[in-house]
């Protein structure tokens, strides 16, 4: 990931204020984590009561498989939201750009490792482009990424109708494989969530990100360059989306340019459900992992209940509405 070298000193710590805030922060984090875990458990329990065969390695495989790609993409969205970049609506397109770059290079006979790296870099370049437009145009990220997502999808539609990963490649073999009873792609996701969580909490880059997201003016007053942090935020998120794209390519035999669209809602829902407020500055990636797991269980449970897949959309949409409703109510009450 990009670690911007900033000229200014790191934000000067203000001990009393910081500990007070992080105490309150960790309390809400624990509450968020517990409530999501509880709802997740309830869902699993309810499904098991109706269909005892839910508790099988098959469901576990299905859930972890869904978790892998949406989890990585949620980390990308989480970075943007925590960094005060509101939302990156073009992440599904970044995912497909990276997947397309990866399989095209593989098809041209480029070694797997280089193809994968290029795929990740292409995601980063996509994010950097968004960042440059946002920073130098001083435009709202939601509108910019809406437009670039629109335009990027159109360019891909003009360029290719569908892309296939070469079936003999090592990346494809990786995508089909399992490790410790779970899909291979689940493990990189777990690593990225862990790394992102550690980076946010312990590195200078992470502290800058939360500082800029929480209060840009204060961060700037302390000598943090907003431009560099914003550029790093969007390129970093793009690169993480690039990793999601590589994982996506490894498990998908053939995809169209529009293949990323289905991730948009689940990713935004996961971020908001995890208590990563759109106003920026706070968020915990472990809670994000729980919320991705919960949302990924819904379609599997729906299938076990014998309901058509449309009900997964209804539940996920309703959940997002309820989650933001509760979040908004909490902020409103806290502000009084």
């Amino acid at each position: 990931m990009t670690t911007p070298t900033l000229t200014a000193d790191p934000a000067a710590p203000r001990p009393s204020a910081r500990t007070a805030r992080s105490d309150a922060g960790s309390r809400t984090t624990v509450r968020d984590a517990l409530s999501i875990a509880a709802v997740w458990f309830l869902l699993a329990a309810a499904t098991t009561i109706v269909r005892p065969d839910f508790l099988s390695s098959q469901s576990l495989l299905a859930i972890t498989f869904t978790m892998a790609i949406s989890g990585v993409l949620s980390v990308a969205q989480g970075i943007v939201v925590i960094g005060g970049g509101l939302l990156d609506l073009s992440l599904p397109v970044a995912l497909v750009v990276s997947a397309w770059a990866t399989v095209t290079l593989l098809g041209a006979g480029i070694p797997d490792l280089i193809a994968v790296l290029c795929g990740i870099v292409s995601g980063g370049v996509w994010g950097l482009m968004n960042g440059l437009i946002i920073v130098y145009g001083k435009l709202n990220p939601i509108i910019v990424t809406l437009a670039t997502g629109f335009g990027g999808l159109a360019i891909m539609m003009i360029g290719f109708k569908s892309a296939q990963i070469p079936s003999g490649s090592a990346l494809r073999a990786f995508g089909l494989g399992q490790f410790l009873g779970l899909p291979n792609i689940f493990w990189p996701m777990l690593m990225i969530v862990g790394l992102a969580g550690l980076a946010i909490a312990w590195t200078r880059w992470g502290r800058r990100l939360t500082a800029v997201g929480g209060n840009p003016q204060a961060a700037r007053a302390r000598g943090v360059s907003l431009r560099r942090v914003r550029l790093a935020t969007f390129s970093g998120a793009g690169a993480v989306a690039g990793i999601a794209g590589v994982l996506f390519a490894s498990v998908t035999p053939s995809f169209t340019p529009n293949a990323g669209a289905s991730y948009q809602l689940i990713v935004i829902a996961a971020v908001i459900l995890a208590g990563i407020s759109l106003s920026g500055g706070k968020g915990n990636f472990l809670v994000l992992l729980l919320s991705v797991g919960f949302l990924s269980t819904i379609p599997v449970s729906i299938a076990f209940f014998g309901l058509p897949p449309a009900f997964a959309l209804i539940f996920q949409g309703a959940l997002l509405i309820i989650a933001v409703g509760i979040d908004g109510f909490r902020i409103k009450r806290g502000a009084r």
Partner: protein
Amino acid sequence: MTTALAPASDIESPRALPQLLTYLRGPVGSIALMLAAVVVIGAISVGPAFFSASNVRIVGVAVAIPLIVGVLASFALLAGVVDLSIGSMVGFGAVAFNQIVASGVNPWIAAGITVVLGVVVGSINAFVIVGLGAEPLAVTLGMLTLLRGVCQAIVVQAPPTTLIEPLYDVTQGTTFGMPTLLLIGIGLTLVAAGVVSKTRVGRKIQAVGGDPRAAQRAGISVVKVRTVALIVSAVGAAIGGIFYVGQLGSASNILGTGLEFQIYAALMIGGYSITRGGVGNPIGALLGLLVVAGITNILNVSFIDPDYLDLIVAVILLAAVLVDRFRGGDAFE
């Protein structure tokens, strides 16, 4: 197309010139210039056929329903609460209306039920956004997904076909040589423009969208204005759905998918913003939709891959928000 007349009319009264210049410098002015450019490009690349009655009718029919939905949704934008769920609401309205009519209910009653469904959806949005204070973008994104799921749950196999004579006449017929539905849409736009720029209600909505706290202090009920705006937006989408059933004779479960982005892209080109309220005028919405419809038509007539449309719209959208910022719009950071 109406813009071609604008320069001619100001020659008559010299005093209007400075006024016109300030007008042209505003958002509606730049979008009018863009529309003029599209018309010129159409005239050059397509030729006289671009202005033929049948071609104008094609554009008019294509733009009419998005115009009705967009103008009513623009009140929510103006009040500072974006409603992303309109695309699925159009689909839900159409599916509900189509299924109710197919089950043998009188079309007028079915239309009434559909409008009530719009009110219900708008009220839920309003309760969560205004009542609980949630982020409008996230709430209506959830509603967008939820309603799409409802459409897919209702329509599992091929949807029934319905032919409702009076509705078909309205949506496909012509009055004075123009598509009737387009005339309704333009009439609605003019009424909405009058409400926004000339009435107290319009000023209230703009005040709420521009600075909700100041509006609250001035004694305007932010809750009431935003609630009504969100209900109007959802009802507009429901009515759009009814008209689509009239036009298509049926309603599939994917009807209206992505319509919200097309409409909001056009509205933002026309001077609205999905991230801040208080800006924009229904006339701008009309011109923005005409620009997009004009480009679509040029691409269609010239047999160019329709995917280029989204690319062109994206570029124009970025240019429009950039111009808006140079004009003194909100800068991010």
